[in-house]
């Protein structure tokens, strides 16, 4: 058996080192690509989560508008009563509404109702029989300076006057929530 020449051994060693270096380079590239794909996946996942959160916030804002409308609809101070009992939901005493309208600009009123209604405007308008001279009665008004959107809820109501004609009119309760 003849021994390989020194040149052949060096060539063989050099080839092996190059092969190892290439293998190493391959490994590094694979890991590098793996991490890049991972980062892409994480960014994609976070974007989806962000979109979902925005959708949830939008739903919450709409829900908040409806919640405020619900709270106004059941305010005991403006609801109709007969013999110390509530007549039916959706019935509002016109004099109580006017009374709330009269104090709606006061600091005490705004301070108290801010916790309940936040940045919103709550108003009542008589629809039928139509009264051209009548302006909408504002129960609460606190407008947000730089608002981006308004969520409007209109609730049909009965507006009853128990003093003069003892008749009820058809009206609309409008709740505008600023965000």
């Amino acid at each position, binding site marked *: 058996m003849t021994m390989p020449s020194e040149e052949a051994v060096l060539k063989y060693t050099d080839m092996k080192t190059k092969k190892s270096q290439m293998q190493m380079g391959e490994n590094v590239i694979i890991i590098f690509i793996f991490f890049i794909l991972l980062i892409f996946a994480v960014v994609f996942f976070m974007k989806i989560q962000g979109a979902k959160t925005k959708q949830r916030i939008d739903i919450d804002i709409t829900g908040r508008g409806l919640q405020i409308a619900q709270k106004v609809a059941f305010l*005991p101070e403006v609801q109709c009563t*007969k*013999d*110390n009992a509530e007549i039916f939901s959706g019935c509002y005493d016109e004099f*109580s509404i006017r*009374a709330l309208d*009269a104090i709606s600009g006061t600091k005490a009123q705004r301070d108290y109702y801010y916790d309940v209604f936040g940045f919103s405007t709550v108003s009542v308008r008589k629809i039928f029989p139509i009264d051209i001279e009548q302006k909408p009665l504002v129960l609460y008004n606190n407008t947000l300076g730089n608002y981006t959107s308004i969520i409007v809820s209109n609730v049909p109501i009965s507006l009853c006057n128990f003093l003069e004609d003892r008749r009820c009119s058809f009206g609309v309760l409008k709740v505008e929530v600023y965000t």
Partner: protein
Amino acid sequence: MKNKGQVEVQFNWIFILIVGAIILSFFVVIAMRQKQASESSINVGFFVNFEKALSGISVVEGKKLLFEVPNMDLNYECTQSCDCAAYAGVSRARASASFNMRDKLIFSPNKLKGNHLLTMSTAWSYPFRIVNFLYITSPEVKYLIEDTPLGNSFYNLLPDKVLRVEQTEQRAFDKQLFTPDQPIKAISGNYKAKFTFIESKPEDFTIPSELVNLPNKDVTAIYFEKTAGSPERIRFYEKDSSDKTKFRETGVSYSFGEATQIGAIFAEDLNAYACMMNKALKKYEMVARVYLEKQNALVVKINEILLTNPSSPLKNCLISYVNSYMDEVIINVPNINFKNQLGENDIAARDLTSNVRSISLQNDNAIRGSCPQIY
């Protein structure tokens, strides 16, 4: 050469180990973060739904709802400055989710253990309807009411022991009547007990042995005190730290009607009760202002009608709209403080009670005279 090959193999293994450990720890961290986020999301989701449910219940009088709770430490706390919030976690500072109660008037124990929560709403009228109170508790809290005629009426006002939820009967509320000088049966599996005394004094009562090992703040009592010529009072007690079989008084406050007394039964302590009642007084003042304005508007309108028709029967209504009593209510209410009252503000509370009686009579007169009601 052999050594170089061995080093290469070893290096490969070390490289694989290091990279493997990095990848593994990366996924472990992501999984842990995800777990925390999902727990937090469940808790936040629960609070969002809970808030919506409470908003629904708070507008309807007499509504009861048994609410399913995920597995978490649910607490409700009012600080000394009356910042009240519900939170999940061992402490408010380290809560995984919390929810500020804002405009809601909630009477509840601090700790809400178990898989269910009972919520109930009751209207507070004094004499006109002011607001709906919300009562929240766990079916694992024991409520013991002294067996007297008034105690029986409180017992009946409290929620039923069992509520029907989706065709199944669920344990909703743990209440029991007791006689102070007789042994109390069936106290077990409760983490909290609240006694309500009507006629006998809590100081003379001996706490049952089953409750002696519970923390002092978890065995509490209230006493409804009625003294002629004085506003109704509620005395608050907790288990004495030196004598675990006795109650020690922690403070005294007012009560204005049944709904406030039920509030005291559900409230954790005097501070929680006073925070809610002081908040309720602000609404009281606002409602009174609306009715004062309504009385004024009615008087103006009736006078206008009388100018054109002096014989109108509405002139008899004017007496019902004399606004001095309502005016007094608006003056009295800001002077009342429900925090530990030892008699100094009794005048405002006494005046409020008498003015309320007068307003109620005015309204009854308006009804009898076929005039529009004040409230």
